[in-house]
C-alpha cells in the first residue's frame, strides 16, 4: 500500500510522517515517531495499555487513525514531564510503588492525568471509574489509587 503524509501534533511538537493510511495512531506513534512509551496490549481496545490523551481526553490509540484527529494535541507518556520536571503523578507512582512491571503504566498515568485535570481532588470512586479501562495485572490497583491521591495533594 502507498504511504501517505500525515501531520500531527504530539507532545507540543508538529510532526509530518509518511505512514500507511490504515495504520493506527498507536502504530504511527511507535513506529514512525519512535515514541514506544505508548504500549500495545491487545490492539482491540480491551486493555487500555495504549491510552493517550487527545485534546486532554483519554483515547485508545489502537482504535483511532491519525487522520481522525487532525491537528488535535496528542499527549503521550513522553510528554507528561515538563522539561526536566516530572509530573506529580510520575513522582507519586514511583513513591507508592504503583508501577510493578510498568507495562500498563503509561496508559494508566494518562488516564490519571485526565482525571486530575477534570477533578483535582478525586474520590476513590472517581479514580476507579477513571482507570476502569486500564487493566493492570500486577498491583490490584491499590497502590495506583494511593499514588493518584498523593499526586492530587502535590
Amino acid at each position, binding site marked *: 500500500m502507498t504511504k501517505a503524509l500525515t501531520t500531527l501534533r504530539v507532545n507540543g511538537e508538529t510532526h509530518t510522517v509518511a505512514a500507511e493510511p490504515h495504520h493506527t495512531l498507536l502504530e504511527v506513534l511507535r513506529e514512525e515517531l519512535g515514541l514506544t512509551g505508548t504500549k500495545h496490549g491487545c490492539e482491540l481496545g480491551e486493555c487500555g495499555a495504549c491510552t493517550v490523551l487527545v485534546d486532554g481526553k483519554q483515547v485508545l490509540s489502537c482504535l483511532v487513525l491519525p487522520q481522525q484527529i487532525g491537528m488535535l494535541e496528542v499527549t503521550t507518556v*513522553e510528554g507528561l514531564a515538563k522539561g526536566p520536571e516530572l509530573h506529580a503523578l510520575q513522582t507519586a507512582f514511583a513513591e507508592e510503588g504503583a508501577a510493578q512491571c510498568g*507495562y500498563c503504566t503509561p496508559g494508566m498515568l494518562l488516564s490519571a492525568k485526565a482525571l486530575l485535570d477534570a477533578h483535582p481532588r478525586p474520590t476513590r470512586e472517581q479514580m476507579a471509574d477513571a482507570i476502569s479501562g486500564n487493566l493492570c*495485572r500486577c498491583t490490584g490497583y491499590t497502590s495506583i489509587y494511593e499514588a493518584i491521591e498523593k499526586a492530587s495533594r502535590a
Partner: protein
Amino acid sequence: MSEFSVLGRRLPKVNAWAHLTGTALYADDIRLPRMLYGRLLRSTHPHARIKRIDVSRALAHPGVVAIVTGADMPEKMGIMPSTQDETALAVDKVRYIGEPVAAVAALDEDAAFEALSLIGVEYEPLEPIFTIEEALEREDVKIHDESRRANVFKEVHLAFGDLDAGFAAADLIRDDWSFFEGNTHAPIEAHSCVASFGGDGKLTLWTATQVPHYVHRELEKVLGLPRSRIRVIATPNGGAFGGKSDPFGHEFSAALLSMRTKRPVKFTLDREEVFYAHRGRHPVKMRLRTGVKKDGEITAVHFQSYLDGGAYASYGIATTYYTGALMTVTYRIPVYKFDGVRVYTNKPPCGPKRGHGTTQPRYAFECQLDKIATELGLDPIEYRLRVLQPANSRTVNDLRITTMGLGDCLKAVRKATAWDAKRESLPKGKGIGVAGSAYISGAGLPIYWNPMPHSGAEIRIDRGGGVTVMCGTAEIGQGSDNMLATVAAETLGVLPEDVHVVSGDTSLAPVDLGSYSSRVTMMAGNAVKDAGLKLRALLFEAASEKLGVPVEHLATAYRRVYDLRDPEKHLTFIEAANLAEGRHGTLVAAGSYKPPAGIGGNYKGAGVGPTPAYSYQASVAEVTVDLDTGTLTVDKITTAHDCGRALNPANVEGQIEGSAYMGYGEIIAEEQIFRGGLHKKPSLLDYKLPTSLDTPELVAIVVETNDSEGPFGAKEAGEGPLNSVIPAIANAVYDAIGVRFDETPITAEKILDALGKRDNRGVTKDRIGPDGLGEAKIDRATRRLAASTDARERKKTGSPAD
C-alpha cells in the same frame, strides 16, 4: 534507629523512573536496522497429522523474505530435561489449536500476516481428547506415543506412615472431591522477541522471558549453535506470572530466521496468540480424605490429584509433585499419602502460574478444614492455630521448616478484620471466611541437577563511587532489579540510587536460574550479599589502616565507612574505594548461592518441595451474595504474609495486593475453557480480568520472622499470598449462604443453581462440585463442532485436503 540504612525503607524502585517516563525498552520496543517482522502460522486442528506443508505461494508473496517450518528445527526441547516432548514448530503432528506450525519473516507485519494464508498445510485429522477422564482411559488414541498408559504424562505416588492406622485413629473422616478450573496469566505485555545473528557468527536474542538461562540452553540444543556464540538478554517483562518461563516457538523461529537471512527478526504475539502460548494454571480434579480427632488434630491425609496438562510437558512433572508436596508444611500431619497423575489433552499446554501446582490443593485443603471446623464446632481461625506445624521442624514428608509465621498471620488477620465480632453478627447473604497457605522461597534443587550455584552475582565498584551489580535474574515487575540494588547498597553502605543494575544478560551477568518458584530474593539476594561482603572486606581493610580503627569496629552506611564508636571518624565511600583499589587492584567480586543440603528427603520425588525457607500467609475475605441475582461481591480481602523480612515494605505490600487481586480473579470469573478444542474466549474482552471497578478493597499486612536462610532474613513475597485468598473467598461464601463451593470459579450462575433459582424447579443444593472422576463420555456435540471447524479451516486456507 534501624540497624539498616537501606532495608526496610519505602524507597522508589531503581527501575521505576524508566517505567514512568516511557523509556523502559521492552522487547517489542526494540527496532534494529533492516529488521524483519515475523508471524507464526498456527494449527487449526486440535489433533492432526501434518501430511504436507507447501510454502511456495507464501514465499512468492511480495515482502516475504524467509519461511521456516518444523522440519527445520526437529530437535526436541522443553524446560524440563527429562520430559522434552515439544519442538519449536510442530513436526509431523499438531496437538492443539493454536500450536505453531510455520514461521514467516517479511519486510513488514502486513506482508508477514498476508503470507500466513498462503501457506498450504495438509492435515489428516485425528481423534482429539479433551477431558481428564478420556485421557485416562483412551488407549486407542495417543496424543504422544511415549505415554505408556492411555494418555498419562506422569504418575507419582508417595506414602509416609501407616495410612490405615491413621484413619483408624480418626473420630471424623472427611472425603471431598473438588475441581479447580484452569486459568491463564494474561500479562498485559504479549510475548515478544528480537533475534539478531551477526556477521561474527554470534546470535543475540532479546526476549521477554523469565528464564534467560534456560532459553540459552535450549537455543543451543535446537539450533546446534554453541552456547558460547549465543547471548540471551531478558528484556523487562511487562508481566509474566509464570507465563514466560518456558522456551517458546517464536524465540527459536526468530533466531533461525535471523541466521538464515542475516537480518534481525522480531516476533510479537497478538493477544489471541498469548492464550495459545498459555502454560497457565492446570485444571485439577482432586480427592482429599482427612482424618481428625474430636479436637481437630489431624491423624491422616490422603490426597489424589488429576491434572489436565494440555498438549505438552512444560513444567508438568514439577507441577504434579507440587500438588502434593506442600500440603504438609502448614498443619501437623503425621501420616500422608499422595497420588498424582497428569494427563495429556489436545489443548494448549498448562504450566506454572503464580503458586505453581500448590494453589489447587491448597483450595481443596483449606475448604475442607473449614468443613471440619464447622463439624467440630470450632472457630476456623482458632482451629488452624491449634494444629499448626511448628517452626524449626521437619514434616512427615521430610521437608525442613525454619521460621513459620502462619500463626502470626492468622492472628493478624483476625485482629485487622474484627473477625470474632463479624462471625457472630453477619446477616444471611454476608459472609466472612479465612484460609492459610504457604509457598517456597525457591526450589531446593535446580532443574538441571548439577553442583553449580543457583545464582551468581558480580559487583564492581568504580572510582566515582558507583556500584554495578550484574546478575542473571529476569525483571518481570516483581522488583528483582530493585532487590539487587537494595541488597548491594545495604551491604556496601551506599544508596540504591548509586547502584547500576545489569540483569538478565547471559553474556554480562553470571547465571541466575530465573524468575520462577519465588527464588530470586532468597537466591540472587544471597549471591549479591556474598559478593558485597567480599568487597566490603577490602574497603574495611584499607579504611582500617587509614583511620587506625580495627576492622571489627568499622561500619558502612550513607556513603561513609566509619568507626562504630565514633561515627565522625570516617572516610567517604569513594575515599575508601579508591584506597582499596590502590591496594588490591580493580574492585570486582563475585558471589554465589546454592541452597543448603539436607533440607529434604532422600526418596524418589523428594526433589520437589524442599526450599531454604517457606513463606506463610493467611487471608480473610468478606463477601456479599445477592440472593436474587446470585452476584458475588467480594468486599474486602485482608492478607497477612510472613516474608521473613521486608527488604522494601512497599514492594512486599505490592506483591501481597497483586497476589490477592490475581487470586480474586481466579475464583470469581477467570477460566481457560474450550469447545471442540477451540479456546472459547481468547481475548481480554471475553476472558474476564478484574478491572478497577471489580477489584475489592485489598489490605496487606507484613509479618516478619527474620529467617536465618534469607538475605538479611528475607523470604519470598510474590506467590504465596495468592494461595490463601482463593479458599478464603469460598469459605466466606459458605458463611454467607451455607453452600460449599468445591469448584472454581464461583459464578452467579452456580450460586443461583445452589439457591434453587436458576430454573423454576426450586431444587436447592448445599454444595457445588464434582462427585468423583466422571465417565469418559465422548462429547459428540463437541466433536461435531471440532470436525466442522476443521472443514471450515481447510476451506479457508485452500488446503489440498479438500
